[in-house]
C-alpha cells in the first residue's frame, strides 16, 4: 500500500519540472531548429517564417565572420579550460597542505564566484583602461613597458585581457572543486605508494589522479561548455572588438538577432553552438555516466 502510494507520488512530483522544461526548454530548442531552416526577419515578422531549406546553413559555412567567431571561441575555450584546470589543481594542491589559513582562503575564493560576471567585467575594464588604468601604471613603474598597453583595443592584447578576467573569476571556484576531489583520495593508498618508494609526482599522477578522475571530468566538462558559450564578460570588456577579433559565437549570434534582425540565420548559428556543446559533452562521456547514477 505504502509503496504504491509512494511510487505514485514519485511520478507526480516530476510533473511541475516536466511542464517547466517542456515550455521553456524543449519547445524553444525545437523551435530554434525549425527556424534555422527558415527565412524569418524582425523587419518582416508579420509575414512569418518561410521555409528555405538549408540556405541558412549554406550561408553560415561561407560566412567569414562566423569562421572568425568560431576560431576565436574554440581557441579561447581550449586555452582557458586548460589554464584554469591546471591552475585550479595547483592551487588546490597547495591549499590541501594549509592548516589554519584554509578557511580564510576558502572565504576569499567565494568573492569572484559570487559577484555578477557583468561586475567583474566592468572591474577589469577599469583596471585595463589605457591612460589611467592601474595595470598600465604598475607596468610602467616596474619598467615592463614604456608605452601604455592598449589592453582592450589592440587585437593582440584583447584576447589576453579576456583570458585574465576569466581566470580571475573561475580559477578560485575551480580550485575549490579540485580541493574537494583531492579530499576523496584515500590517504592509505598514498602512504602505501610512499613506502614502495614512489615520489610525490609519481603518486600524484599514478594514484591521486585516477581516484579523482570522475570528479575532475565533470568539473572540466562543465567548464568547457560554459567557456564555449562565453557572452557576458566579452560584452562588457570589448563587445567583440577590436575589428570583431574577440567576437564569440554567442556574441555573433546575438548580433544577428538584434542588429540585423535575422532570426533564421541566428537560429542556424544557435544550432551550431548547440551541436558543438553536445559534442563536447559526448567527449566527456565518462563524466556524464558518473552523473547519471543516483
Amino acid at each position, binding site marked *: 500500500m*505504502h509503496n504504491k*502510494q509512494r511510487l505514485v*507520488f514519485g*511520478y507526480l*512530483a516530476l510533473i*511541475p519540472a516536466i511542464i*517547466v*522544461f517542456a*515550455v*521553456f526548454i524543449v*519547445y*524553444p530548442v525545437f523551435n*530554434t531548429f525549425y527556424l534555422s531552416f527558415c527565412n524569418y526577419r524582425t523587419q518582416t515578422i508579420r509575414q512569418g517564417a518561410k521555409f528555405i531549406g538549408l540556405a541558412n546553413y549554406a550561408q553560415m559555412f561561407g560566412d567569414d565572420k562566423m569562421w572568425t567567431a568560431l576560431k576565436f571561441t574554440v581557441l579561447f575555450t581550449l586555452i582557458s579550460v586548460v589554464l584554469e584546470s591546471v591552475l585550479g589543481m595547483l*592551487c588546490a594542491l*597547495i591549499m590541501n*597542505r*594549509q592548516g589554519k589559513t584554509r*578557511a580564510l582562503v576558502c*572565504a576569499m*575564493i*567565494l*568573492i569572484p564566484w*559570487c*559577484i*555578477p*560576471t*557583468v*561586475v567583474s567585467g*566592468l572591474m*577589469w575594464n*577599469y*583596471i585595463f583602461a589605457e*591612460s*589611467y588604468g592601474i595595470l598600465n*601604471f604598475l607596468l610602467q613603474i616596474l619598467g615592463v613597458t614604456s608605452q601604455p598597453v592598449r589592453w582592450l583595443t589592440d587585437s593582440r592584447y584583447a584576447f589576453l585581457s579576456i583570458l585574465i578576467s576569466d581566470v*580571475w573569476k573561475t580559477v*578560485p571556484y575551480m580550485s*575549490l572543486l579540485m*580541493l*574537494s*576531489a583531492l579530499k576523496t583520495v584515500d*590517504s592509505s593508498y598514498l*602512504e602505501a605508494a610512499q613506502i614502495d618508494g614512489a615520489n610525490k609526482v609519481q603518486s600524484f599522477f599514478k594514484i591521486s589522479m585516477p581516484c579523482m578522475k570522475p570528479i575532475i571530468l*565533470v*568539473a572540466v*566538462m*562543465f567548464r568547457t*561548455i560554459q567557456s564555449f*558559450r562565453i557572452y*557576458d564578460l566579452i*560584452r562588457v570588456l570589448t563587445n567583440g572588438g577590436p575589428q570583431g577579433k574577440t567576437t564569440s559565437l*554567442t556574441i555573433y549570434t*546575438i548580433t544577428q538577432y538584434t542588429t540585423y534582425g535575422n532570426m533564421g540565420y541566428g537560429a542556424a548559428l*544557435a544550432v551550431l*553552438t*548547440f551541436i558543438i*556543446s553536445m559534442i563536447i*559533452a559526448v567527449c566527456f562521456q565518462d563524466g*556524464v555516466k558518473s552523473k547519471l547514477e*543516483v
Partner: protein
Amino acid sequence: MQAVQRKPGRSVGGQIGLGTFTVLFVLLIVAPFVWLLLAAFKSGKELYSMPVQILPSAFNLQNFKDAFSVQPLLKYVVNSIVVAVVSTVMIIIIASLVSFSLARTQIKGKRLVLLMLLSISLLPPVTILNPIYLMMSNLKMMNTTLGLALVLVAIELPTAAWYLMSFFQTIPDALEESAMIDGANVVTIFCRILMPLVAPGVFTVSIMTFIAVWNNYLFASVLNPSKKARTVTVALTMYAGETTTPWNTIAAAAIVACVPLVIMVLICQRRIVSGMVDGAVKG
C-alpha cells in the same frame, strides 16, 4: 601516520612557501575588487589623476548618490530582488519534489530524468533565446519581472535539483520507515519529515540559486530591456555614455549590486563551500 604527515610542507622553508602563496593568492583575488571599491569613493579628478592616486582623499558618498539619481537604481534593485526571490522559491519547491522522487522512490526512468537534467544544465542559453523572446512577446510578458523569473526557473532548476539530491540521499531510511509504521502517508513524510531534515541543504541551495538568478545578464537584457522591469546587472552596463565612462559612478552602482551577495556569501561561507563540495563529490 606521524612519519607520513611530517612532509617538507611542515619544514620552515615549506611554511614560508605556503605563507607566501597564501598571501599572493588572497591578494590576487581581493586586490582587483578592492580597487573597484576604492573607485566608488573617488572624485572624478582623483579617478583620472596621474600618477595614480590609490586612496580616495575623503570618504565621499557622492558617487552613490549619483548612481541612484542618474538611473532609478533603487527600482532596479527591487526588480532584481523580486525576480530572484520568485525564481528561487519556485525552484526550491520544484527541485525538492524532483530530488525526492529521484533520491527516495523507486520510480522507473530515473536515468532518463537525470539525463534530462544534465542536458539542460549543459544547454547553451543562446539556443533557446529567440523562441523564448518570441513566446514572451506573444504572451505580453516582455518587461515583466514574472516573465523573466519563470524563464530563469527553467534555466537554474537542474543545478538546484542536483545539489538538493545529494542532501536527500544523506537521510537514513530508518527515519522514514518509523513514520510509515506510525501511519503517516507519503505527502506527510515529505512535508513533515524530509523537508525539515534537508532544511540546511535547502538554505544553501537557495543562496546559490538566488546568486545565479541575480547575476543573470543574457535573459535579463533580452527579455526586460525597458525601464519598467530592468534588473541591476543590465542597468550596470548603461552608465557608460557614448564618450564618457564615469567609473566612480559605475563602481558605486556595482558595489550596490554585489555587496549584498558578498555579505550573504561570507556569512554562510562554510555551508556554501561544503554544499559545493558535496555537489561535486556525490552528484
